[in-house]
């Protein structure tokens, strides 16, 4: 058992980091919306799912059959742009349709939460029954879901003694880190970013400063959705699979990552994402891969029991984001 762990240490670390990067990108959307609205946007998972189909569509439309090297980076960039735009736009629509009307009526948080769950199921079923059969050629898979598209030609691009990193994992990791840096700059350096932070810290005073809360909320959903879209493109690059139910488990994991880092805290989401990815992979090498999800959620329960504000532990209002 321990031998497995030691033998598998480097591969697990690399898998953990590339998976964690995806969790982190999705977790950002949960944490930002929570920061601004104190709402757990359960439908965020399905915004991610929409992104995986946008990525599939991109690969099919571009007619990519086998990509490696620079070509794969190019495909990744195009997929990320398309999926980011589609998911960002969907998140914006989701806010306008499912949350804004409730906010205008001053409805309770519970009402918004129920609306979130409803929206989540709606998006899943819309894809399962309508969008997927209509847009995609399901006959290729014998009418079965999930849809697969094998287009990545994998090879190790880093070989340092025990460390081997394949091109797809490297692209996932680097792509995600670039997005995180961009988001950090946006939130901390731009005026709209200040608007988002002020709303998260004290919405009433933000209005006194002239911040248009509706605009801030829209931007938050747009940016969070776009991050989920890019995460979906990276996920699709890595696993080459799209399914209307993908969002469910991945969404819970990303939400776990957000809570792990301290929900409402942007840097916490990043830390939580990577930590969860690593825990999962180390856990599977220790106990066997069937224990992966058990490990992930045990970590969540332990953190909630002993450090309910998450790893970074800042309170929400104090969070520097």
């Amino acid at each position, binding site marked *: 058992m321990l031998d497995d762990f030691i033998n598998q240490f480097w591969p697990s670390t690399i898998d953990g980091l590339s998976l964690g990067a995806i969790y982190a990108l999705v977790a950002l959307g949960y944490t930002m919306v929570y920061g601004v609205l104190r709402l757990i946007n359960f439908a965020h998972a399905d915004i991610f799912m929409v992104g995986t189909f946008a990525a599939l569509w991109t690969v099919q439309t571009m007619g990519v059959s086998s990509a490696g090297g620079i070509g794969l980076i190019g495909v990744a960039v195009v997929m990320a742009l398309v999926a980011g735009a589609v998911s960002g736009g969907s998140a914006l629509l989701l806010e306008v349709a499912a949350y804004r009307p409730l906010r205008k009526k001053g409805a309770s948080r519970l009402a918004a939460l129920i609306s979130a769950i409803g929206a989540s199921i709606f998006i899943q079923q819309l894809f399962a029954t309508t969008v997927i059969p209509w847009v995609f050629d399901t006959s290729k898979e014998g009418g079965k879901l999930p849809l697969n598209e094998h287009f990545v030609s994998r090879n190790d691009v880093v070989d340092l003694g025990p460390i081997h990193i394949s091109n797809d994992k490297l692209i996932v990791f680097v792509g995600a880190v670039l997005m995180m840096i961009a988001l950090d700059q946006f939130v901390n350096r731009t005026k709209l970013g*200040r608007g988002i932070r*002020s709303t998260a810290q004290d919405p009433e005073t933000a*209005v*006194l400063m002239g911040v248009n809360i509706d605009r801030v909320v829209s931007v938050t959903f747009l940016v969070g959705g776009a991050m989920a879209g890019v995460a979906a493109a990276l996920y699709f690059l890595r696993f080459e699979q799209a399914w209307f139910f993908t969002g469910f488990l991945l969404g819970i994991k990303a939400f776990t990552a957000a809570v792990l880092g301290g929900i409402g805290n942007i840097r916490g989401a990043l830390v939580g994402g990577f930590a969860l990815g690593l825990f999962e992979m180390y856990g599977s090498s220790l106990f066997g891969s069937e224990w992966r999800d058990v490990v992930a959620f045990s970590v969540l329960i332990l953190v909630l029991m002993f450090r309910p504000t998450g790893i970074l532990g800042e309170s929400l*209002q104090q969070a520097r984001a």
Partner: protein
Amino acid sequence: MLLEIRDIHVHYGKIAALKGITASVDEGEIVTLIGANGAGKTTTLKTVSGLRPLSGGGIVFDGKDISKMPGHKRVLAGIGQAPEGRGIFPGMTVEENLLMGAYARKGDSSPELKEAYELFPRLAERKNQAGGTMSGGEQQMLAIGRALMAKPKVLLLDEPSMGLAPMLVQQIFTIIQEINRRGTTVLLVEQNAQQALQIAHRAYVLETGRVVKTAPAADLLDDPEVRAAYLGGDLGAAKGTAAPPAAPAPAPEPSATSADAGGPADADSADPAGTRADDGEGGTAP
């Protein structure tokens, strides 16, 4: 009149917090709203800033009915507020907090930033400190400086002296007078009625959501009812415990201003007393 509050009614759920408040503020004035806890002072200011909807009455600002204008647009229209409890963004630096004050405005805000630092040198020393780690007095200066960043026509101040040591209270009131002397109209809410009445031109007394008295501030200082209810007793006792010796004279003669808007604005501002804001720190250390 710059700001006219016309018979406004405001509810929290079914409970009426304001039951018909009428008040006005003329250009160049310092007007104060005094009253006990729960009288409706904060609600009045929040409603003027658009944070609470009206259930009756109206608000006219600068000749326009702003009753339905969304809150975030009122800043640009010229209404600035340093809210109760100061509302400092704890995770932002002092400078970021100040820049939030200019959020609604387009273009370069460095002249206003410079002016805020000149008015409050203490803030310049601490520009990179997180707002949430500042002392109470510093936070209040930050809240006022931030509200000024929007170049408001009227500055709403909600209990700026709350929780401050006497020396700092004195400083804050001196700065409010200086801000007014530089041309900003002030609507000041205070529980510290003694001090507020000393710097204000006119005053309204609020009780349970209604205006029960309005008069030139100087008259209320001598009003037996007001003395008994808000100034802690009779003339002699109150005078004894009031402002420290260095207290400034009430700026322009209050008697001359109640009707004449030009009065306070053209007062000589050769000596900006409020700029010496950096020497009261000792009193605040928690």
